[in-house]
């Protein structure tokens, strides 16, 4: 993986930059020592590391504005960072960049149940947004697996999803307004507590732009009343194809569960060994959750079980109470931890049309044999968002590279099947070089033009999302200045 060569002129101005930032920030907001900047050398994609020039931890929108204005004047790249849980390297620094971390900006600014919104500073963690309204029976819907740690800022940057987005949508569908600081320090307000923002849908393009268009410091989020109840059912099948067909039939029948999770045998076994959730030993497992009133839950589950029965399941288990429901989810929720315990793994995130699920799973199996690396599949089946986990040994020379090569083949397969490279993790550095497989050069050029408008000097997270070859001329303009 290639990153741009750090600009020696910037490296030589570290003390100067530090002084300028020090003039507008409290002393504890600037991290400059080599020992401390190391804490920001990577995100959750730990295969790549590079300590930044400086890290800054502002507490207010005004401080963010000052930081960006100074970096803009100095021509220094800025890499925004939420909680650093990106699996795609979205917050990976370069040696000549300033990491702008929003972790200290974690206040709830306003809770308004009449209008069903919450306004928070963007460093607040996803789960603590729901936590702030939970006692009043409300919740914030997008629920990425990392929700305990991940920040709303990162959720907005990556347009994060989660297990329950089949019904509730992803971040972009639950974001009503932002306060954002542009690279030159200008503070803009987009949208608000009303349902549709005026003018062009700028919020729509900011959400998912991986911190390349601006730094979101505050967000107005839609909160929802909790359903009366929810219940999962677990269904085991003796083949992936049959499980895939069952998912398609359920959706066609007009039932819209809040979640349909899929696990294959390697994943089931690993989870079972790790979490002892009592999963059956079978080829494929579906966890389907429905919600609503007791009558509605019972009705939907009857329909789902009827459809499942027609596919001859090897196991069909409905949660009888809260404890059984928790057990059904236990294995799934610990899937990544379970896999991490037995192996190093790389988690992919391609999305495919639900109808090509059996084909894609079969092909991944074939590729697994070709590359000699095992794969465990766990994913959101209702919306086709796959999460193949490729297992490798980081201590074995060449294994990481082999794994990356394998991963690239799987992602290309997703695109070939009519899907895309990433459903919810983002491109970051990880999938940057595959962008030309999904988009033509002119399609990418249209996206680059959007960045030209928001960040003409290409200083915000400049080495991400797009192949470096496509952005080189733009990034060089700033180096020349």
């Amino acid at each position, binding site marked *: 993986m290639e990153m741009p060569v750090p600009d020696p002129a910037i490296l030589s101005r570290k003390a100067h930059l530090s002084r300028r930032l020090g003039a507008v920030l409290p002393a504890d907001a600037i991290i400059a020592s080599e020992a401390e900047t190391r804490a920001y050398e990577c995100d959750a994609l730990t295969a790549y590391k590079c300590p930044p020039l400086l890290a800054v931890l502002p507490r207010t929108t005004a401080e963010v504005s000052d930081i960006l204005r100074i970096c803009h004047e100095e021509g220094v790249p800025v890499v925004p960072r939420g909680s650093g849980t990106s699996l795609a390297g979205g917050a990976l620094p370069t040696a000549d960049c300033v990491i702008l971390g929003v972790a200290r900006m974690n206040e709830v600014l306003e809770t308004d149940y009449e209008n069903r919104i919450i306004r928070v500073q963007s460093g607040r963690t996803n789960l603590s947004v729901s936590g702030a309204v939970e006692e009043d029976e409300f919740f914030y819907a997008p629920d990425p697996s990392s929700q305990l740690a991940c920040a709303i800022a990162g959720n907005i940057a990556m347009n994060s999803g989660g297990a329950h987005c089949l019904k509730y949508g992803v971040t972009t569908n639950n974001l009503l307004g932002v306060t954002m600081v542009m690279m030159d320090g200008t503070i803009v307000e987009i949208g608000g507590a009303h349902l549709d923002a005026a003018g062009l849908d700028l919020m729509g*393009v900011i959400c998912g732009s991986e911190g390349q268009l601006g730094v979101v410091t505050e967000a107005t989020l839609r909160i929802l009343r909790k359903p009366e109840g929810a219940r999962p059912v677990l269904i085991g099948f003796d083949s992936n194809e049959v499980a895939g067909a069952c998912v398609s039939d359920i959706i066609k029948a007009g039932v819209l569960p809040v979640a349909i999770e899929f696990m294959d045998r390697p994943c089931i076994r690993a989870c079972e060994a790790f979490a002892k959730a009592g999963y059956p030993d079978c080829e494929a497992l579906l966890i389907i959750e429905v919600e609503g009133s007791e009558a509605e839950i019972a009705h939907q589950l009857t329909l789902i079980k009827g459809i499942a029965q027609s596919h001859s399941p090897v196991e069909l288990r409905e949660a009888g109470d809260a404890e059984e429901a928790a057990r059904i989810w236990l294995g799934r929720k610990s899937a990544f931890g379970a896999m991490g315990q037995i192996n190093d793994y790389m988690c992919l995130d391609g999305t495919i049309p639900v109808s090509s699920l059996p084909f894609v799973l079969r092909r991944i199996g074939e590729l697994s044999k070709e590359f000699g690396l095992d794969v465990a599949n766990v994913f959101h089946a209702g919306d086709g968002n796959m999460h193949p986990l490729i297992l490798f040994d980081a201590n074995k020379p060449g294994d990481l590279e082999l794994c990356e090569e394998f991963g690239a083949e799987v992602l290309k397969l997703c695109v070939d099947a009519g899907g895309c490279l990433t459903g919810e993790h983002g491109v970051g550095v990880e999938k940057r070089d595959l962008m030309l497989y999904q988009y033509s050069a002119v399609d990418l050029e249209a996206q680059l033009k959007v960045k030209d408008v928001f960040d003409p000097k290409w200083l915000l997270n400049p080495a991400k999302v797009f192949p470096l070859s496509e952005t080189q001329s733009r990034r060089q303009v700033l180096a020349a200045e």
Partner: protein
Amino acid sequence: MLRPENEDDLAEAIASASAPLCIQGGGTRGLAVPGEILSTTGLSGVELYEPGALTLVVKAGTPLAEVENLLASEGQRLAFEPMDHRGLLGTKGEPTIGGVIAGNISGPRRIQVGAARDHLLGVRFVDGTGQVLKNGGRVMKNVTGYDLVKLMCGAHGTLGVLSEVSLKVLPKPECSGTMVLYGLGWTAALKVFCDVLKSPYDVTGVARLPGRDGDYDRTFVRVEGFEDSVKYRLNKLYEMFSDFPVEKLTMNSETNVRIWQSVQDVDPFHDKPGDVWRTSVKPTDMIRVTGMWDYKHVVDWGGGLIWSLVSEGVDLREKLTDVPGHATLVRASDETRTQLGVFQPQPAPLAAISHGLRQKFDPKGILNLGLMG
């Protein structure tokens, strides 16, 4: 009039244009600008429909009615209930799916399922230089690169001309029911709006229509789903308001369907003299708009969307300068439109970004020039 019949011809038409073009689908939404008409109606037809994946890919000029009929044949629908502007504006023509997307047109169910933009998965379009571009795709979760899909939705053709759209569709529930409350004042109505939307009963429509000729104003709350569940939730809602003059509507009745059609298409203002404004505010600010007693108002989105029928030439926007949100002048004489502007002007930094985007995507300045500021 230019009426290309495929994407290549569309691209050619735009590439060779040197004067402003008026981009038009069915031409039913009353937003025509000066210039030669470029009609998308020649780009029509379904490319792909997978009911099991809830996905539809269709050319932009396809009539909306054709799309809705196709979906209905599989028990599915466009969940965001796009409005038909013909009744309100007195326009003729056949609304197209591209027009719906270009205007981000969303009806009563927007409060529960989101707007048109939330159901748009992918686009193909031709920019102002004649370049064919694509963004997004046909899968429900996609964060690969920037989301130009959202940017194109609601851009009214100012950044490019849509040639194909890919949509998420949803199953049509087996049953729908409505609670009707009669003669509530605005304050009481707002309390009902907020209370039902705070309830766990998953309401899919909250609206209020003015009474006809001295009849009571009517406030509506809709639930949809499986029959037993609809009955249950309707009863629960009914219990919440047993002190009010309230009625439960027979489910799936003609009346029930007609009510929501009236809200969606703003029926009470059809053929009535006066200008029509569409204001988007946070629900609790609804009173600021509906408090203007001189005017009639139709309220949707649980108070978040207000249609106001006002005397000709009145600047509603001017009366709401301190209310966050925005107001669009939907129906008025050409003179009033020119004088007041159809779309709400944006704060300077946002206007600069929008202007910058238009310059990048339409450097010749030929796509719906003058629209959206």
